[in-house]
């Protein structure tokens, strides 16, 4: 999965598509399997990135990865009360409005109003938080200033972010990262959470889940949610019923800015432990190392030998994700230092200062190539804290590449650029004109089938292996509950 942040307009269509399909139910009202955050900002749940508060993700103990929640033996004692569980108030109390008051109120001097009521208790509530409470408040000293990523900046850099002229923000859509080293799976006492071998989707078996809530704490991205009504945890399922029938997940499909890309990645799971042994700022490269080239004959042979279908392999070759992540090195994982090896990659947004304004004059000439990148409105350190475990070079490279493509296309279409300078820019980044053209195509003009290259999942083959009467499945959707998902007594 790749999200191209330079294209995200923060419209929340993805969130609504997901909410309508999956979480518009009792107990799930507060769940946003997909949400869009404003950065700088505290996100959802509030300040989720602060692992000193939430204790999510992994840490290295004598070279061995272990959960930040504590040693396994001691964690078992927390089963009666999980000290690091986020509370409802870290999210918000879901509410609706008492609309019937608008119709049923007796006639009086005042206009009747629909007061907010809690969807949990049914009582009147004062709304104090919501799923997008700090939406667009990039410069806010109340919300944005509490962004944990700003802690790493110097006073000057912080001042730069919040200087009113330079007020800056961008959008960060988030779903489950379907990690290679998922902390939620590792933390589940019941063994109910697993990663699917076929497509890497991380799922919670609702019949095995006993509601111990350890996954909620363990997931550093806070993308596992506890359903307070059914007593089970739930998370993004990457719309697997859609994927299995060749459709893109609802949030991908509905994306207005077309920022989302989906495609197969082949990786070598045996390299996982080695990849986790490196320091934080090397994690992105270590993860890239794990990803294999589907065109490499040796890789192909190995994959086919392991029973991966030739058509799935062919889809991996056309994967837009492989290009952004591995070939072009433009897409970076969110907070790799949580060490879950997230499989959702972000192309960082290009927020350069393109011009300066002095005495009312707008000057957009740049003395040096890439100088706008160096003067980006969000300090490189901030971006590196989000996307590269502190490694500023990786972010800088990804941003320069985007900028170079713009220079290249401007020369191509408008022609008012210095051709030699553009050539130099491409050379500095070890980039050919052909590659620049391809990046431009996939970024600006990708067709539906280029954004979503979904390897066929061959459910028909799986069906053939079932002992059950396969015609009993006829007309079925292939998923669902064998019994109604209602709370036990």
């Amino acid at each position, binding site marked *: 999965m790749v999200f191209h942040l330079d294209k995200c307009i923060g419209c929340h269509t993805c969130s609504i598509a997901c909410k309508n399909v999956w979480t518009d139910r009792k107990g799930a009202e507060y769940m946003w399997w997909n949400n869009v955050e404003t950065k700088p900002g505290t996100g959802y749940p509030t300040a989720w990135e602060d692992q000193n508060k939430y204790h999510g993700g992994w840490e290295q103990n004598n070279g061995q990865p*272990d959960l930040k929640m504590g040693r*396994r*033996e001691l964690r*078992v004692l927390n089963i*009666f*009360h*999980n000290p690091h*569980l*986020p*509370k*409802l108030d870290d999210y918000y109390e879901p509410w609706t409005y008492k609309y019937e008051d608008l119709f049923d109120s007796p006639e009086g001097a005042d206009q009747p109003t629909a007061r907010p009521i809690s969807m*949990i*208790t*049914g*009582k009147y509530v004062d709304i104090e938080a919501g799923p997008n409470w700090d939406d667009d408040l990039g410069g806010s000293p109340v919300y944005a200033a509490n962004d944990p990523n700003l802690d790493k900046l110097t006073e000057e850099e912080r001042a730069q972010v919040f200087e009113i002229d330079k007020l800056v923000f961008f959008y960060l859509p988030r779903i489950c990262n379907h990690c290679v*080293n*998922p902390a939620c*799976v*590792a933390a589940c*006492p*019941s*063994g109910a*959470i*697993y*990663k*699917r*071998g*076929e497509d890497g989707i991380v799922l919670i078996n*609702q*019949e*095995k*889940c*006993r*509601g*111990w*809530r350890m996954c909620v704490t363990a997931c550093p991205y806070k993308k596992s949610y506890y359903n*307070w*009504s*059914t*007593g*089970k945890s739930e998370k993004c399922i990457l719309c697997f019923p859609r994927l299995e029938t060749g459709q893109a997940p609802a949030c991908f499909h509905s994306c207005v800015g077309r920022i989302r890309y989906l495609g197969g990645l082949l990786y070598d*799971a045996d390299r*996982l432990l080695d990849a986790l042994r490196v320091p934080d700022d090397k994690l992105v490269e270590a993860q890239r190392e794990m990803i294999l080239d589907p065109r490499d004959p040796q890789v192909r042979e190995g994959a086919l030998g392991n*029973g991966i*279908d030739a058509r799935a392999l062919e889809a991996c070759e056309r994967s837009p994700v492989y290009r952004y992540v591995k070939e072009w090195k433009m897409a970076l994982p969110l907070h790799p230092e949580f060490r879950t090896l997230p499989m959702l990659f972000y192309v960082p947004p290009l927020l350069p200062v393109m011009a300066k304004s002095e005495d009312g004059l707008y000057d957009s000439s740049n003395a040096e190539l890439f100088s706008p990148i160096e003067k980006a409105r969000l300090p490189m350190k901030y971006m590196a804290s989000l996307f590269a475990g502190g490694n500023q070079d990786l972010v800088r490279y990804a941003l320069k590449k985007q900028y170079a493509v713009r220079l290249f296309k401007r020369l191509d279409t408008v022609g008012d650029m210095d051709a030699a300078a553009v050539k130099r820019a491409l050379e500095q980044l070890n980039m050919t004109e052909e590659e620049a053209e391809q990046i431009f195509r996939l970024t600006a003009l990708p067709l539906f089938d280029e954004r979503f290259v979904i390897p066929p999942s*061959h459910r*028909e*083959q*799986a069906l*053939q*292996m*079932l*002992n059950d*009467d396969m*015609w*009993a499945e006829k007309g079925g959707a292939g998923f669902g509950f064998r*019994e109604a998902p209602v*709370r*036990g*007594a």
Partner: protein
Amino acid sequence: MHNNLLYIILPYTAFTIAVVFTIHRYRKDAFTYSSLSSQFLESKELFYGSVAWHFGVIGALAGHVIGFLLPSGVRWFNGVPVRLYILETTGLLFGLLALIGIISLVVRRATSSRVRAVTSKMDVVVVTLLLIQVSLGVYIAVFYRWGSSWYVTSAVPYLRSLWALQPDLKMIEPLPLVIKLHIVNFYLLLIVFPFSRLVHMLVIPLQYLWRPYQIVIWNWNRRRAQAHAPQPARQPAGVTSPADEAAAETQPVSVYTR
């Protein structure tokens, strides 16, 4: 007659109901097996209630079970007065811990509107029975001293006689009313067990201590699946494929062990 009803018919009925319906529920409605935690809605008061209750009740229950399994061992242990005092005090402390815990949980459930929103009628029944049971237990521990000793010489022989299918009431007939109530209330708890949230004690995730951290499940074995291509001829409904075409493979694969 009334003794037979309470101490013979009731326990066998309760035990049968508990076993049959617990298994039935697990097989037919696994979804409803959950701790049904309300910590997400209210956490601070739960800490004192839940931790005290669970450790207290596990300790107290363990004492009863040990007495049931090893009556002569307990009698031998209690042969030395100091050991008897230690055992009695420990038992009482566990009982008090459980009592404080459950009272605190009842208060929490009654006062927090969010927690009340997830409280079922069965929760009220269960918590009432548990409150009665623990109160009686603590009362007995305080007012009928050396319970650890007389438990193994009166109640345990009776319980073991039930287990051996030769009910013998002569040891418990002379017991005080409070103790009899404690016994009958236990049977009532057994009856509600399969229909309540109490079943969560059967799904304690002990296996977590030794399972590998990561779980990868392949829904089907691609190699075997491809061996089945091309598609077999259509079969009429009701005809199953041969047994060797095993169902979906769901073996956890360890990525690393710790």
